[in-house]
Structure formats: structure tokens, C-alpha cells
């Protein structure tokens, strides 16, 4: 490995990345490159050891802890995309089942003549449960939404 190549490889190293075998071989034979690598390592260690903050360690911690004690516990949010699939299934069922049932009379055979009432009840129950869970898990978003539009005071 040439001298310039070795120096370029040193400059390309990622944080925490070790030397390649070729680079190690070169460093073992080239005192100039070995010295450059050693100085670079020492400089970075010295730089990282510096503390730029003169502030009292406890000051920020106490303020943060005081602020979060007033807040509700962080809770596991459900991503909106998790709600899309069940919503799509319910919506599709609401439209497709009656249409298919009427066209093919398959549902008449399977469920008997009163199936429309049963389907309406099941879909209604599914839709109600979905809505309850969705609203219950998005209360804070709803609150923020209303506050932003001035519909609810803090």
C-alpha cells in the first residue's frame, strides 16, 4: 500500500471501525503513517473528553423532572396505519356483503332469509367497537386538534 493511500484510508475510517489488514501491515512498516494514525486517535480522544458545559449538572435534570411529573405517562401509541386495515375490512364488508348476497343469493342459502338483519348487527357491532377503540387511543391527538382550532381551552 502506498503512503498516500494509507493516509486516505485513515481519513475514510468510520467511527469505531478497525484498520483493514493491508492498512495494519502498512502501519507496522511505515513510522510516519503510524505516527499520523496515533496522533489522530489521540486528538479525537482529547476532543471528546472535553466538557463544553459549565452548567450545574442537577439544574437541567431537576427542571426536566419537575416538568414531566405534571405530564401524563407516555403510552404506547398505535400507528394510524395499524388502523387502516381493519377499517378497510369493515368498510368493504359493509358494501360488498349486501351486494354479493343480493346478486348470488349465497347468503340466503348460508344464513337463511333473515341474514340481512344478522349482518347489519354484526357489522354495526364491529364498527362500534372499532370506533370506540380508535377514539379511546387517540384522545390526546383529539385534544391537541381541538386546542389548535380554539374549540377547547387548556
Amino acid at each position, binding site marked *: 500500500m502506498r503512503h498516500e493511500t494509507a493516509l486516505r484510508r485513515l481519513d475514510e475510517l468510520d467511527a469505531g471501525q478497525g484498520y483493514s489488514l493491508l492498512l495494519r501491515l502498512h502501519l507496522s512498516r511505515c513510522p510516519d503513517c503510524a505516527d499520523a494514525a496515533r496522533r489522530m486517535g489521540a486528538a479525537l480522544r482529547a476532543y471528546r473528553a472535553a466538557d463544553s458545559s459549565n*452548567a450545574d449538572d442537577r439544574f437541567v435534570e431537576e427542571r426536566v423532572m419537575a416538568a414531566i411529573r405534571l405530564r401524563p405517562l407516555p403510552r404506547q401509541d398505535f400507528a394510524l396505519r395499524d388502523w387502516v386495515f381493519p377499517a378497510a375490512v369493515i368498510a368493504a364488508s359493509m358494501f360488498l356483503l349486501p351486494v354479493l348476497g343480493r346478486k348470488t343469493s349465497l347468503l340466503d342459502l348460508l344464513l337463511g332469509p333473515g341474514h340481512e338483519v344478522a349482518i347489519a348487527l354484526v357489522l354495526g357491532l364491529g364498527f362500534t367497537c372499532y370506533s370506540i377503540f380508535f377514539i379511546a387511543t387517540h384522545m390526546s391527538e383529539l385534544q391537541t386538534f381541538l386546542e389548535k382550532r380554539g374549540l377547547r381551552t387548556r
Partner: protein
Amino acid sequence: MSSADQAQELTDEAAIGRVLDGDTEAFAVLVRRHRARVERLGMSFFHDEEEAADFAQDVFVKAYTALASFQGRSLFSTWLLRIAYNTAINARKRSRAQLPLDPELEIVGSGGTDEEHLREETARAVREAMADLPPRQALCIELFFYYDLKYSEIAEITGFPVNTIKSHVFRAKRVLRERLGAMREDNDAARNGA
């Protein structure tokens, strides 16, 4: 072992788990462990200790609120720095004064003269490399040199492509290497003269 010592031994993940289970006080472990890094980022942006402390408080409260969304795909420190970076960028956008990144960040440290000299040279090289870059890209250099973050982690925090970050860091390292070389020559000359 005191409860404070036991709390200090908690890993970030364990502390997060305890906070999510309702032990709000476990969040103090995370604040204590990561405060200095967040404040330093604040100093880079706002150049003022009081503002940096306010910034750190804001970042930690945001992190607490969003803690349930931390899924452990990256280190907590990387996730926290991403929140800090976005908070700082948004604060700068809101601010009328478009301040450059701190050109004279005061470095306080303990150590011998050689170490201090090395630190000063490194700080100068970092500043020189950052000088020509827009603030958001300049911060990539600081994230590598001070925070010891990998290119991929810096990309995750800042949203810049890895190759862009690599080229900025590469340039900064070359500047630093040249400075360190000149420093060695000065030392050799002084030794020979003596």
C-alpha cells in the same frame, strides 16, 4: 448499594421500560446520562448556556412524551440526538437571527498541556472544516468528531446521505491531519533548537 447507584446501573433500555411501566423517576437516569451531549448540541446552535439549558429541557420533555414510540431499532442516544437536532433546526427556523454554528465553543477540560494543545488543534480543525458549510451540514462534522457517531447514525439523525457526510468528515480529518503534522514539526524544531 444505594438506590441512586442501582438507578445509575440501569441500561437505557431498562430505564425506558421502567418509565413506560409507570416509574417516572427512572427518566432521571436518562437525563443524567445524556444531558451533557444534548446541552453541547444546544451550545453549538444557540451559543448561550441559558438557552442551551432551556433547549436541553425542551428536548428531554419531548423525548419523554414520545418515549413509547422508541422501538429500540437504534440506540437511545441516537434517537435522542435526532429529537435534539430537529428541535434545534425548528428553533433556528423560527428565530429571526440565523446564527452560524458556534465558532468559538468554549471547551472546558482537565488534562495536561499536551492534551489541551491537541484539543485546541482539533477544535480549530473542526471549526475550519465547518466554516464553509451550511449549519445543518456543518453539524455532521461535530457529530462525528465529538459524539463519535458512525456515518449511518449521523445520516439517521440529520437525514443527509451517508456519502455527503463521509465527504465532509473526510475533508475535516485531512485538515486535522495537516494541523497535527505541522504541530509535530514545530515540536521537533523546538526540541532540536533547545
